[in-house]
């Protein structure tokens, strides 16, 4: 029992330490909303806000059930074009929902690239 208690104590202590470390080092930006993407011009003009909104919801609810959350900006829009069809094939979402998901992810990826470029210019 002493061993058990010691192991649990050590585990919790370790968790607390790495928790503090993680809080100190992590950073992330919010996932852009459909309105943000429409306003920025990152989305195709033919993609209505409702579809982008549904795509954002699908990204949050479907993708993370099997793997960690990938922010759209982690890949370029062209890369997502090949990643998404393979991934969507693993989910129980319809073709139309898959189209909404792809529209959102690629728009958000373009938006993230634009933001990065803007930040670079601002820093200079």
């Amino acid at each position, binding site marked *: 029992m002493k061993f058990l208690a010691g192991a649990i104590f050590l585990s919790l202590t370790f968790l607390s330490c790495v928790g503090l470390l993680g809080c100190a080092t992590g950073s992330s930006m919010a996932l852009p909303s459909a309105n943000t993407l429409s306003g920025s011009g990152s989305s195709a003009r033919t993609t209505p806000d409702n579809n982008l909104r549904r795509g*954002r919801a699908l990204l949050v*609810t479907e993708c993370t059930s099997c793997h960690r959350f990938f922010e759209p900006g982690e890949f370029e829009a062209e890369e997502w074009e090949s990643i998404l069809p393979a991934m969507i094939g693993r989910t129980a979402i319809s073709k139309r929902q898959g189209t909404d998901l792809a529209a959102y992810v690629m728009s958000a990826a373009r938006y993230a690239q634009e933001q990065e470029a803007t930040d670079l210019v601002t820093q200079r």
Partner: protein
Amino acid sequence: MISVVLFSWWLSPAFAEDDSDVTGSTATPGELRSEVDELREAVRRLEERLEATEKRQEASSALGERLSFQGYGEIHANFAEGSGPDLIDIHRLVFGVGYEFAEWIQLGSEIEIEHGLISDDDQGDGEVVIEQLTLDFFLTDVFNVRAGRFLTPVGIINQTHEPPSFNGVERPSFAKTILPSTWSTDGIGIFGRLSDTVQYQAYIGSGLEGAGLSALDGIRGGRNSGRPSLHEPAFTARLDWFPLVHTDLVPDHDLRVGISYYRSGLDNGAKGVNPDVSGDVSIYSADVEYSVHRLDLRGVAALEKIRDADSLTTGVASQIVGGYLEAAYHVLPDSWKTGKMEESDLVVFARHDWIDTQNELPSGVQRDPAGQRTEWTTGLTYFFTPALVAKADVQFRQDKTSRDLPILFNLGLGWIF
């Protein structure tokens, strides 16, 4: 001599043919027409062959787009303190094929091979089982139909059990006994999204086999993946709520709350032979997953009520309860994620399971103290990539027999593709 040779060459068919080709003076209009017809026929045949080739290429490309192939697997090494068995276990190898019959009709399947060997002798305790075989008919966002063999929508692990999706080499003990995974149901039902933040599933299908319930393993033995009976079918429904979907908190915060209900009669057997028992099972369960920045928290609890438990195998409880809580932290600094470790992650976790398969008993039935147990599991999950993990953990277990059970050490590799 030279003149004889030249005269012979002039008379030769080759010379005559060449001459007519050049001048055209020897071909009649009929012969020319015939030649044109032959050429037309040759072009037509070539066009047909080209068209057939194009069709084959299109069909091949369409098949590639419609067909999908996926799988997952895990290899474990298990060590037990003392004289317990130490072994290596090719625990699971799962393949799945999907096919899109139309934009709105999709076939899905998963076939699982367990424990590396299927044999009649003592060495093999493996099995091959169709884990999922579903036809999904996508009608609207809100209303879709699913038929076939699907995962019973209860708990966390039963619905998502690919190795990279959970911590620990072995699935939680709760997910082996209280809501046993993998637990499939054969039947039909509906599913969909009531809104961007709420999803539902509701099915009717094959029920639990009453003769399989036991004092220590609860409903685990009641699953039936052969040709299950529909004598006393099961009804199951589930709601999942994602309250943060449209907030600015995402992706740093992710919250999902799920509730499930399951009810099944127990007079069900395999191959149409029923055990002739009475009673039924009702299961109420709730689960939550919350991620905030690098911290992942998840928990599940379930309550199972078994009516007429005294008509089943001796010792089966009338009430079973259980749950687990888990905290996990992603510890790998971002600055380390370069080169070969670009996609890597390291998670440290601790989980507490509590299980009571003898929570309430029918009157006159003796309680088995081994049915009430707790378990602490702590360990590491290293992601080489998001789809390939190495795991290590240690498990401390206790039950109410007033003794500590042997400590277990587990190592594992798991993947999904």
